[in-house]
């Protein structure tokens, strides 16, 4: 799939400005492998973004989430206009004031019928909203790597997934990212696999052999990273690993992480708030660490979740599957167009219930966030 076709999905007006901005100040021929880094954090389950940043002046929201509305209205911190942060999440305001965090409100896609985890995740990962998955099995980032739109000198697989979850955004038709799970013991399998690779060199062109070879290269390249223990097997620990990789100038341009547990059909505040707190504290530590080493300007973090939730609470103090949501972009050198997106809160009625209507299409974020454009 050609690059032009990808751009066709988003808004072409934006695309041309992006290319010129990325090319300013860096010569493509000398693009080193440690230039820009993107960290993609997927929140699995459908995080309720409006719990953290709510449209307090909106009547529908106030009437359908009375206790949350009261909490935020009394002591929340204003973001802009009608929006206010939840009082427990001062850290979001701190990061926003420093210019490290930009929030993209009301992001979504044009499918209000299915409200399914799997379909929503398919859309986000393949970068398309078509019914027929036979057309787009590959991920948006994988296609870019296939077409050499992302350039990382000397590395055919510039994407590293630090998880065991089944993400697809890095899988192109030709290329596939590498996986590294930093908390499982790998130890000395290295020599065993070397023997295997030597014995089976007649299989050099098969998929399986290439996967094993790539995995061997990853464990070779990352052998100086200290593995984290099982108790640190959470997003903070993984972000530490990523920070260490960036400091060591590992040849990867994109890192993929996942945090699970956001499908809050039941007792939402008890489950959501600690998880989100953990996430944003981890991101703050990550940003501070890289900023102290002077690397934060090259890094961007995209935090997204597959869909939002219903405006109204259900009887179990939770919410059910909904439509639009917020996405978060972090970085040391963020452009001002993130602030210019439409942040008005609009609702739509479906089967007698209110859902949020999205203003921004999710593919616009991908357009703007691709690192190392060749």
């Amino acid at each position, binding site marked *: 799939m050609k690059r032009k076709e990808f751009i066709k999905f988003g808004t072409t007006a934006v695309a041309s400005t992006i290319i010129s901005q990325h090319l300013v100040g860096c010569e493509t021929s000398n693009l080193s492998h440690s230039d820009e880094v993107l960290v993609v954090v997927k929140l*699995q389950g459908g995080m309720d973004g409006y719990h953290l940043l709510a449209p307090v002046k909106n009547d529908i929201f106030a009437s359908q989430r009375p206790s949350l509305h009261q909490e935020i209205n009394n002591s929340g911190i204003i973001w802009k206009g009608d929006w206010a942060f939840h009082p427990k999440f001062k850290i979001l305001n701190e990061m926003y004031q420093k210019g490290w965090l930009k929030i993209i409100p009301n992001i979504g896609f044009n499918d209000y*019928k*299915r*409200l*399914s*985890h*799997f*379909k929503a995740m398919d859309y986000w990962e393949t970068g398309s909203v078509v*019914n027929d998955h036979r057309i787009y099995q590959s991920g948006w980032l994988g296609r870019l790597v296939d077409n050499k739109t992302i350039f990382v000198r000397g590395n055919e697989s510039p994407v590293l*997934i630090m998880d*065991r*979850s*089944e993400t697809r955004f890095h899988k192109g038709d030709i290329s596939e990212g*590498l*996986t*590294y*799970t930093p908390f*499982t*013991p*790998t*130890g*000395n*399998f290295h020599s*065993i*696999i070397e*023997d*295997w690779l030597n*014995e*089976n060199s007649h*299989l050099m062109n*098969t*998929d*399986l*052999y290439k*996967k*094993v070879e790539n*995995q*061997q290269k990853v*464990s070779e390249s990352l052998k100086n990273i200290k593995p984290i223990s099982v108790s640190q097997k959470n997003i903070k620990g993984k972000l530490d690993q990523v920070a260490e990789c960036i400091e060591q100038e590992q040849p990867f341009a994109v890192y993929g992480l996942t945090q*699970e547990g956001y*499908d809050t*059909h*039941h007792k939402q505040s008890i489950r959501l708030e600690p998880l989100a707190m953990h996430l944003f504290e981890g991101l703050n530590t990550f940003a501070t660490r890289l900023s102290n080493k002077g690397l934060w300007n090259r890094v961007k973090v995209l935090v997204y979740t597959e869909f939002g939730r219903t405006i109204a609470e*259900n*009887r*179990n103090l*939770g919410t*059910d*599957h909904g439509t639009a949501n917020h996405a978060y972009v972090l970085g040391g050198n963020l452009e001002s167009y993130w602030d210019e997106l439409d942040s008005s809160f609009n609702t739509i009625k*479906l*089967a007698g219930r209110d859902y949020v209507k999205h203003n921004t299409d999710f593919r616009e974020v991908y357009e703007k966030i691709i690192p190392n454009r060749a």
Partner: protein
Amino acid sequence: MKINDDCLHILNRFGFGPKLSWLSSKEKSCLLEDKDFLINWITQSNEGFVESRNIEVEQRFSDKKWQERWPLATMRCKWVQRMIELENPIEEKIALFWNHAIPVSVNIWGFAQDVLMDAFRNNASSDYNQLLKEVLYSPCSLKFLNAYHSHKNAPNQNMPRELLELFTVGIDNYTQKDVIELSRCFTGLRTISPYAGEPFPFENIPYPYKMYIDDGAQDRGEKTILGKTGRFGSDEAIDVLVSDLNTHFNIAKKFMMFFVSDNPLRKHIQELSQHTYSKGKINISDLIAHTLRSNWFYDDQYKRNKVKTPVEFWVGLFRHTGLKTETMELHSNALRMLGQNVFFPENVGGWPWGKNWFRGINLVNRIAIPRVLLSISHDEEQSSEMSLFEKVKYRTTHRSLLGFRYEYAVVFNEDDFLNIIRSSNKTLSQWFGTSNNHYNNILQHLSSTEYQYN
């Protein structure tokens, strides 16, 4: 006589592979040669299932406290050992299939998981309706899908939605209105179990945790699901969903993807779903009998090209080589390294299918673990005074690799193995079912890419 290729195919798919001891036994070796005899032996549902349920296989754990501390891992180990020891593990294989088809993650400690396993095992030969009801009413599912709190004033949509999307008709075959109507049918389900989140004393827990219905919370009105109207409770709603043609197709598809091929042909799936639809009910043992007696099951396109799930790989390794282990913790740790922590699917969508098992560290482990296991016992000297179950200490490198903390014994007697193969006039490639005579020794066979496929 030569090993019949079709027999090997049947044993690999509807079982975990042939056992090494069969080669030296006259009654069992005809299983490998006579196809009709084998089909009868597998499908004798009454004898096979009842017999297997009563067999307690021998298990030894190196530390009794380990069992108390990790009850789920203990259960995992016991189940895997049954798969290895039983002559005809068809019931265990069906339970594994249901684990893949109806994935329910366990976030409950304790005996609630026994209920789920009983539901899978006891209903292996009964209808899908019955199985689905038992699984969904167990405390594991009720908690996992938040259904134990649903009230008629504001019903919970999680379980009905996943039921429609994953377990019955499939996406695009229902509307949001169906989800809402179905969530009204599933109101009022309650369970007696402290692990469902309610404060409850730990004693006096009646096993097996019956589900009961709270009359005050149940919605008794008329509902319309998939075009049918009636005063449906949860039982009747499940019957309506299962009788839909799309459900038959989806179950036939999962059956084909688990037992037959990663990429089954649509016409064969449709043949199976027409068969079940004409009978009006979905019965797995019936489907198995139908598949075994068909012609297309033995086509070349369906042989040796289905990726083994980690459980199949691990159990097959033990059955093929006659490996014995004294301490059971090995099974739990190995399965975790291979990527299939049984009873803990990664999300409600369940386990990966096919080539998606070859990811990252799991792939490396699949290739390296046979070498690690078999090479340990090679290096130790064996004198005639030692017994077969001799305790062997890990070398420190391998100990840290496999994450074990206890002494264990894995015994593989290469001379015995080769003697058995030679005396039965089989070659290594014929025994392991590979098409290639390229491999000269056992380790090469077991860490070959062909051994990853069934």
